């Protein structure tokens, strides 16, 4: 090591190594997202597709603002033409201490918008619920009117004249659908990211406290609770007086809707994150292990399993007796429930996390690349693709 000024060189090298260590440590964060991106997937009502696009974070430590997101967009479902869009922004900067946080930041929306009457409802990661006119995009009300709740990851359900959602503060809220006034709240033991489901005047919702709750939709009183072995993030499926719900403990549970008793449970290799779909007395559940399991609704017997090659995050949809399901890497499959045969419908070649939606033989898939793809549900032909951000 032909060194001149060895001591100084060694000192400098040590300094460089320390700085490199700091640099690498910081760079180690790349790939670990620090800001929510959202991306809600679509909901269709009266030929209009409502969607909240994902936010693309600039990343690194630059002052570049995040791209897209923070809005509710209404599109013509037939051709994707934009009808209106409403910005949803947090008034307080959410940036770090780099002195360049923008005055307002886009709000990440994870849950599917819900439509009831002439209003569309979305819950934001900024802890607000927005009620917006489905025809004009005018803001009708916001909850809470002052301040914010904890982040809302759960989707919103609008039914029985109320709007229901779970919050990261561990509470389930019911608001008056017309005015946004709070009707009741119910506290669980931990965060709620699960989207609720309604069946027979009962609201079912899972919590990080590892429990599935059945609450009276009218007043929020608890009917029963069921304890799983791990936190529950997925949305419950109500089907034939049973509740089917997956957990990050790798089980899919079937629980009696009447009393919360366990009927059966099925163990997979990884988490169940997405909601299951049921048809013909069979439950179809996508899993992080890259498989879709077809299970007997009555007894949990495994009828078939299908390897999609990458995890399943997005909610599948049922279209004319076929389950349409997308894998994370963007492959879209159609699963014929009559004979449990699966075939590749299309490959959008982009990551898909958002729930799928379908209407009149068209599948709408929103990717994390901020593209909305409309596919023919039978042939898989791409009808149109749009960048929505």
């Amino acid at each position: 090591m032909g060194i001149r000024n060895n001591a100084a060189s060694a000192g400098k090298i040590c300094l460089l190594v320390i700085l490199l260590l700091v640099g690498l440590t910081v760079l180690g964060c790349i790939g670990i997202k620090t800001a929510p991106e959202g991306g809600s997937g679509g909901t269709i009502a009266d030929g209009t597709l409502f969607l909240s696009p994902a936010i693309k974070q600039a990343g690194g430590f630059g002052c570049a603002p995040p791209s897209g997101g923070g809005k509710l967009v209404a599109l013509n479902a037939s051709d994707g033409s934009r009808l209106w869009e409403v910005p949803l922004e947090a008034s307080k900067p959410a940036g770090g201490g780099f002195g360049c946080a923008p005055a307002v930041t886009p709000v990440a929306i994870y849950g599917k918008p819900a439509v009831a009457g002439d209003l569309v409802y979305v819950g934001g990661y900024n802890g607000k619920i927005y009620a917006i006119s489905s025809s004009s995009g005018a803001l009708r009300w916001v909850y809470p009117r002052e301040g914010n709740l904890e982040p809302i990851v759960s989707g919103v359900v609008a039914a029985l004249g109320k709007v229901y959602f779970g919050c990261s503060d561990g509470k389930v809220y019911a608001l008056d659908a017309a005015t946004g006034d709070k009707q009741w709240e119910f506290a669980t033991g931990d965060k709620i990211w699960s989207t609720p489901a309604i069946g027979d005047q009962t609201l079912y919702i899972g919590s990080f406290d590892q429990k599935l709750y059945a609450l009276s939709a009218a007043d929020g009183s608890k009917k029963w609770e069921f304890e799983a072995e791990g936190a529950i993030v997925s949305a419950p499926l109500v089907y034939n007086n049973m509740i089917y719900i997956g957990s990050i403990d790798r089980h899919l549970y079937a629980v009696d809707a009447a009393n919360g008793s366990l009927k059966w449970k099925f163990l997979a290799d990884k988490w169940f994150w997405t909601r299951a779909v049921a048809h013909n007395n069979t439950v179809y559940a996508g899993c992080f292990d890259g498989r879709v399991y077809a299970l007997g609704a009555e007894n949990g017997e495994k009828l078939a399993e299908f390897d999609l090659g990458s995890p399943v995050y997005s909610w599948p949809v049922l279209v004319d007796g076929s389950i349409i399901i997308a894998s994370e890497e963007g492959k879209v499959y159609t699963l014929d429930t009559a004979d449990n045969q699966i075939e590749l419908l299309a490959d959008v070649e982009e990551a898909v996390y958002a729930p799928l939606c379908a209407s009149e033989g068209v599948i709408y898939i929103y990717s994390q690349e901020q593209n909305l793809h409309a596919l023919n549900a039978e042939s898989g032909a791409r009808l149109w693709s749009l960048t929505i951000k």
Partner: protein
Amino acid sequence: MGIGDIWNLIAMQPMINTLIVLTSYLLNSFGLAIIALTIVVNVLMYPLTMKQIRASKAMQDLQPKIAELQKKYAKDKDKLAKEQMRLFKESGVSPAGCLLPLLIQMPIWIALFQSIMRVMAVIPENLVGLSQYLYSWPVVYSTLPLTNEFLWLNLATGNIFLALLVGGTMWVQQKMVMTSTADPRQQTQSTMMLWMMPIMFAWLTMTFPSGLALFWVTSNVIRISIQYFVTGWGGLVKSAPKKQVGRDKKYKERIAQVEEAPEGADIVVPSSTEEEGLSYEESGGKRQDRGGGYPKSLRAIRRQPRRGRGHRRKRG
């Protein structure tokens, strides 16, 4: 299998799952798990850390001699390099001695850092990402997601108290290893480092989840303890050095042997600190050396009887 997969398999997965299991056994407290794992990793790295500190210490002890050589051979760079190499060789100090242990430790620290970030999984994207690192242990699945509350802190957000603690402990650690030098340029560099690093880390702490701050504070406290064990308070306390005992004394004797060799000897011909025109403190002698800076390679040499001033050392 790519490099990323190998990294995940050998570093991230063990670290992440250990953190989760520790959380489960430590009252479901992620904060306690971070502290515990940081201590465990530090214990495992103790030999390397000691090696690094000792090498740095030995390097610091040679600074007065190096400064003198630089002064003496300012116009002859080749001679300077040659003499410096000889000084390092004779005193058993390697200029890169502090590098290797640091390089070996680096990936482990990065893995620990990344693991803490991943396990916190504040936003949905991170929780989804975490799923690919988990072992099929029931305790792992039943413990997740972790709660981010620890004492009065939310480990998912920045905290000014922890930021100050990170900056403060880092400053103390830096100050302990800081050495005085006659070279004003080096002195400026050292002072800059003394303030820049703590300020930079405190700033980073404010922008990162405070779970990381907990990791940094714990690491710094451990490093301060080890440093104290090896060198005493070092540059932190400007007091007269304690009576040298044990290995430190022997190490000093060996350095003195090198220093006392006569002009023109095959080994480097140093002069005493008085000859350099430096006071004891200016020469770095103010440090309380507790023996840790003693290089292994000097052990054999130190058994030789000390030669008097002017004695020409035989080679071979």
